[in-house]
């Protein structure tokens, strides 16, 4: 095995045992269940998650307060928010497929929200931000993150890209969309009235956030626990338990019966697909970095890793 899956202590396929959470979950309800458990146990005081318009209507004081145009929140625009209860977790559940700057709340969580122990969910790049913040905390004063949950990520989309994909390509109104999903080589849009539209991923590529194309991490190598649907059967999620903290939280959550699991070796398509996609991402983006090095005539674009 190469380095494409990062360091991990264990890997399983899992699903939440909480039927109510599962109803609202993207896949196996892993993130919501982990945070619900960590909140109950006092491992965290609150968690930073990607909420939305409906969440903001219900819990405005739990959302980021900046100039992010909160007067008019469009359907499916993520709003970073702090959750401290299971009801709030459920209200924020589900993947949004566009940018949610969760790290923007990381300092605010200790200030306005008074959290000593912060949980956070994010993409691999956001996990990188969390770890940079712990080793090089230029401005993150007294920020303590006992549980960082990373999600697998091939690339992300700006809000306007999702608008374009759903309303133009899939010809659906965003407000009528119940769920979005990327899987089986397609971008799926599920309508509230039961209609399903699928777009080939090829269509989506030009709408990807360019900043994603220098990212060399598919499975959130720097999270305590990382999770994503890839590798597991429908309704289940693949889990990598990575850090000591992650190991301890996962063991406690398992002991408390929060999850049912299957060995990753026993499920289809299994780690083989995760490895394949991780390598695809890393190879493609290394090529981007190489191309950036000779982008102009004797002039390079900047490489953040050097």
């Amino acid at each position: 095995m190469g380095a494409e899956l990062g360091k991990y202590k264990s890997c399983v396929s899992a699903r939440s045992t909480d039927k109510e959470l599962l109803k609202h979950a993207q896949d196996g309800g892993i993130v919501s269940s982990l945070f619900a458990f960590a909140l109950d146990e006092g491992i965290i005081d609150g968690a930073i998650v990607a909420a939305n318009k409906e969440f903001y209507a219900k819990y405005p004081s739990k959302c980021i307060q900046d100039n992010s145009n909160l007067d008019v929140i469009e359907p499916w625009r993520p709003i970073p928010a702090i959750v401290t209860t299971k009801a709030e977790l459920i209200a924020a559940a589900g993947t949004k497929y566009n940018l949610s700057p969760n790290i923007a709340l990381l300092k605010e969580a200790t200030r306005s929200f008074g959290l000593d122990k912060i949980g956070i969910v994010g993409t691999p790049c956001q996990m990188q931000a969390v770890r940079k913040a712990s080793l090089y905390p230029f401005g993150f004063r007294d920020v303590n993150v006992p549980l960082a949950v990373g999600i697998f990520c091939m690339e992300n989309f700006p809000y306007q890209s999702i608008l374009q994909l759903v309303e133009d390509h899939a010809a659906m109104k965003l407000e009528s969309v119940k769920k979005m999903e990327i899987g089986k080589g397609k971008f799926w849009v599920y309508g509230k009235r039961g209609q399903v539209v699928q777009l080939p991923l090829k269509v989506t590529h030009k709408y990807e956030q360019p900043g994603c194309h220098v990212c060399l991490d598919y499975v959130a190598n720097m999270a305590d626990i990382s999770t994503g649907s890839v590798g597991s059967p429908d309704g289940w999620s693949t889990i990598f338990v990575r850090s000591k903290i992650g190991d301890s939280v996962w063991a406690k959550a398992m002991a408390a019966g929060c999850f049912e699991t299957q060995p990753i070796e026993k499920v289809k398509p299994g780690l083989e697909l995760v490895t394949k996609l991780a390598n695809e991402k890393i190879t493609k983006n290394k090529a981007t970095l190489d191309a950036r090095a000779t982008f102009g005539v004797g002039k390079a674009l900047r490489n953040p890793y050097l």
Partner: protein
Amino acid sequence: MVDKITVGYTHLSGCTGCTVALADNYGGLLTLLDKYVDLKYMPTLADARHIQKVDVSFVEGSVCINDKLAVEEIKETREKSTVVVALGGCACYGNITRFSRGGQQNQPAQEAFLPIGDLIKVDVYIPGCAPTPQMIRNVAVMAYLLLKGTKEQKDLATAFLKPLMALPVQGTACGASTACFCDLMTNVIDQGLCMGCGSCAAVCPVRAISMEYGKPNGERDLCIKCGACYAQCPRGFFNTDVIGEYEAINEAIMAALQ
């Protein structure tokens, strides 16, 4: 005592916020002083205030070039220190003192302030206003390991400090390098590297940055040029070899402070 590194603290035109941040390590500061650091001079926290020969000097504040004493002190700091660390936005980039036009009491003629890097060679930058207690602690521990550690520890400290040593080389001017929100524009966003994590908005001490549709929007009139946003940005610098080992490094730092 033999194994300690000698440290000094030169205080120029700064608000003492960096001093407070250092002191806010509480017990950690006492452990640092007990085990690793012989604090030779420091206004505010030590009796001795005059610059002496030391291994590492921390400098808080920018230099008022109309103040003869300040100019002498920064030069003397350079001459007498092996390593000079610019602590905080003022020392690194001028920060809020960049906006001074003089006329303030009780020294109205002291009107021109420069980051210390415009007058002397600086080895390490710690941007931010103020840099956090944890950041100052991490650099202090790494400075100790660099000077007194085993070969392995020296390598780790070198790798850790490398990006902070690259910052002074990039310079002190706005936009040209690392001084304000302009640097996020020129070095991250314009370079197609921003992925919208929100680190910059979180660390801005004056809330000049908001995340609009997932991307940073800087109110440049509010920016005080502390350098925190660009320093904190994972696409500003990201040394995977060091940050990837965050768990072991954090554990080592915490163990050192036990």
